[in-house]
């Protein structure tokens, strides 16, 4: 006779998993995250707590700090948005078309990952400087790129591109051809199919790519400082300001800027995560 075992009353979040080893892997993941991410970050939080609220607020609301934060998050946001558009286009071309040199282009996408960021920074700076290959004709048109926030955006677009392409590409590859064909037989034009059927399906992946590119852009240092010119209140990024404060042995100010960055970045990523969960639910994955 078959006996049915009553499932032991477990933690609520254990129930959905049928994969063995949950306890072990979960424990490992938590420990690992704590060691790698939480402990260093809590160090930062504790240090800034030492400052006291009033002192912290004074340091954090310093106009130069505010300006640097605005530059950092503003340029990272714009660059991530640009990367979403062109990253999706690049991924589309790589997934959908077979052309000579496709593998080469595919490999090229990863280059910003591999290149030391300082090398990228110097290359970009010399390219976009007022006497550079691109900088000179742009200057002739009255457009100043290097040593402005625009230059920062360009550097961040460069380093952020692979994040969007590589998150969107695999999902795009999984798109069922028949879904597009179904849309066509129902009378949808290519454009309508793209806007109404394909992109909504890609939304979660695009959001992930955006979040990664944004996070990378906020934290980026090496590739930016050469092209940015680092003019306070104009093109000085927050990570650079942290380094400057440290060189001045002003650890308190550096800590305050770091804590601000952490808080804003966390809030942003958390928001994106919520958005993702919503779109996932909405677009019916799992």
């Amino acid at each position, binding site marked *: 006779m078959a006996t049915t075992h009553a499932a032991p009353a477990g933690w609520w979040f254990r129930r959905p998993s049928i994969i063995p080893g949950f306890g072990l892997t979960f424990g490992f993941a938590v420990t690992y995250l704590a060691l790698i991410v939480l402990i260093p970050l809590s160090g930062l939080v504790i240090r800034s707590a030492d400052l006291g609220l009033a002192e912290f607020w004074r340091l954090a609301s310093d106009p130069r700090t505010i300006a640097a934060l605005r530059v950092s998050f503003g340029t990272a946001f714009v660059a991530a948005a640009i990367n979403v558009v062109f990253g999706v286009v690049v991924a589309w071309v790589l997934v959908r078309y077979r052309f000579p040199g496709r593998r080469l282009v595919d490999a090229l996408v990863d280059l910003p990952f591999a290149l030391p960021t300082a090398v990228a920074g110097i290359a970009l700076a010399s390219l976009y400087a007022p006497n550079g290959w691109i900088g000179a004709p742009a200057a002739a048109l009255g457009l100043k790129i290097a040593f402005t926030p625009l230059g920062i955006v360009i550097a961040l677009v460069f380093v952020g591109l692979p994040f969007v392409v590589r998150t969107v590409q695999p999902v795009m590859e999984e798109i069922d051809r028949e879904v597009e064909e*179904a849309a066509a037989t*129902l*009378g949808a034009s290519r454009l309508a199919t793209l806007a109404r059927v394909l992109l909504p399906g890609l*939304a979660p992946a695009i959001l992930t790519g955006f979040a990664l590119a944004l996070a990378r852009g906020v934290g980026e240092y090496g590739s930016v400082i050469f092209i940015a010119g680092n003019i306070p209140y104009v093109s000085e990024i927050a990570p650079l300001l942290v380094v400057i404060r440290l060189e001045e042995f002003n650890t308190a100010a550096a800590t305050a800027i770091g804590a601000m960055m952490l808080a804003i970045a966390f809030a942003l990523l958390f928001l994106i995560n919520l958005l993702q969960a919503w779109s996932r639910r909405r*677009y019916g994955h799992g």
Partner: protein
Amino acid sequence: MDLRIKNVRKDFDLTPALHDVSLDIASGELVALVGPSGSGKTTLLRLIAGLEQPNAGTVYFGQDDASRLSVQDRQVGFVFQHYALFKHMTVLQNVGFGLTVRPRGKRPTAREINERARSLIELVQLAGFEDRYPSQLSGGQRQRVALARAMAIEPKVLLLDEPFGALDAQVRKDLRRWLRELHDVTGHTTVFVTHDQEEAMELADRVVVMSRGRIEQVGAPDAIYDTPASAFVHRFIGESVELPVYIEGGMIRLDGIAIPLSAADEPDGPAALVFRPYDVAIDEVDRATYPGIAATVVASRWHGRGRRLELAVGAGGHSMEIDLPPDVAPPVDSTLSVWPTRWTLYRPSGASLSHPTPAAAASMVSPIQQMAVAQ
């Protein structure tokens, strides 16, 4: 709307998937495409929908050459084998999709679209599921959403690629009957592909049997079943017994032994003797008394309405399965004398000889059979 397919050929990288296929489908007809895997059924359906372009030949929608119409303009409702629903849209949005993407001038108002979609959802018996996403539906329900979505655009032709392929037997049966009723109500010209010949027989007005990119036979289900035009159709549709025989001077020999069937006037050479498992007579006496096909009973199974015997035949190690009425029960290991009462000889040349001649039995005679009779 009626549909004419004229001398259509389709090659994929030089390998032909369809050779010179012609088929006329009348308005309102329900036609089944059957054939083994890779025989070109999906390709034919996709050509009609405009999802593929023929290398030669033309598809006509009524009087119009369909090659001038894009997929979007053809107004075919296509139901894909794996449904291809839009995952991020609710059932209601899926069904309404075809109407919402119409160009501005022809687009119904949002309210009309909503009403149309709801009435279709009711038609496919999914009322109450409007706000679910496809991932929250069972296979059969997704199937019906796909059908409702295809019907929403008021299609001129409805094309279904193995609509019930992924479903279990009971659901298939229900959906099959339901699709037939639905067709009777809506009257769409419908072409559907199926692997299941029983489904084709039960559902279709006409059945098209395909093999290796060609149409082997087109006809009403009973005509296909009773007067198959080729050995392939005979084998493919319904069950059949097939024995390799040799014809010599009008005698049919199996493993060198003459069997009591006459093939007078047939040229000498090899042939396949094909008959239905139930078109046989047996005699339980020793083969010396009656010279049928000598066969030994290997196994005997009761299947509710009769008995199925598995027989070993002759010296060549052939076997066959025949059906007997419930009251006859020859024991295992006994030797029987078996002879087919309705049979057909198929020659390697493609010619065939039937007994009794289908000409006598049915008015519809295929050219091949007439040729064989004339020989």
